[in-house]
């Protein structure tokens, strides 16, 4: 039986959907509303630096960023595939979408490593 690679990408798509739906609204609320509107005190540089110094925070951010990107990649691949109906470009679209997500994840990993 020919093994389909879809379960691999679909699992990452599903994981990305769950993690981004759970955490991105929370992060947006804290960073985009609560802090600018003064509902909670703005953390100072030293505090943030310490927070990002922890490997747990960095690992969490890497998972959040890379899985969200892979969620986007799978969805955008099918949007292009079905929406533009360019079946003959399937391989190119897959490389563009998943490749983009992987490059983005690597970049995120690199910058998180630098902290």
């Amino acid at each position, binding site marked *: 039986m020919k093994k*389909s690679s879809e379960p691999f990408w679909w699992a990452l798509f599903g994981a990305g959907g769950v993690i981004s739906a759970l955490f991105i609204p929370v992060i947006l609320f804290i960073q985009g509303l609560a802090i600018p509107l003064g509902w909670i005190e703005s953390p100072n540089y030293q505090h943030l630096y310490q927070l990002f110094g922890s490997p747990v925070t960095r690992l969490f951010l890497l998972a959040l960023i890379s899985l969200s990107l892979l969620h986007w990649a799978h969805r955008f691949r099918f949007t292009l595939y079905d929406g533009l109906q360019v079946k003959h470009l399937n391989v190119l679209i897959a490389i563009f979408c998943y490749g983009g997500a992987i490059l983005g994840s690597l970049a995120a990993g690199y910058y998180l490593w630098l902290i």
Partner: protein
Amino acid sequence: MVSKITLEVFRYRPDQETQPSFDSYEVPCEKDWVILDALNYIKDQIDGTLSYRWSCRMGVCGSCGMMVNGEPVLTCATFLNKFLPGPVKIEPLEHFPVVRDLIIEMSDFIGKLQKVKPWIVRKEEKSLEDGEYIQTPEQLGDYKQYSMCINCMLCYSACPVYGLEPEFVGPAVIALAQRYNLDSRDQGKGEREEILSQDDGIWQCTFVGECSEVCPENVDPAGAIQRYKVAATNNWWKSLLMPWGKSE
């Protein structure tokens, strides 16, 4: 006085014409008539050459599915007066080749259905002396919803993916495969997986969900497909991480 309503009916007679056309018929709009009654009126009183499939008139046989004003419905379960003042457009089910008038060619669906073995597969049958296969109400509940499918193919007309990818196994076939996969008496999961786990199996589905919207029996094929995706993904990871293990 009974009001009248106009039906614009798709006509295609391959022995007489190369292109399909629409014929208009004015029919009485009786209070308790469904679309199928109006088609039967046309056939009996106005134009005997109109061809369409129907049988039970009560939403059980699944043969009278058509596009009514662009929506796939069972014509025996869709009231005519809902469409007043009209006109009502009646077309054959979308995404299928047309044989004649409102009759579609369904062999693609039947072929795919047979491939997933929609029956109880046993590696070894019990002998008669061993008695029946006992099943609890909970075990029945696991698959009962999917067993309500009447093969009307409305979900195939509603599915944009099937319209674009004719190779896609499609909603009803996957729901019916799940009907047997989830049956405690069945042992054919592995054989069905060979068809369902291919790219043209469940993985073409992008969860548009229209199949479940139009299903007259509330089978929820979209739900069946998502559940199967989870099961297939678990199996895929298991066979990757534990190649010596047996897939379920």
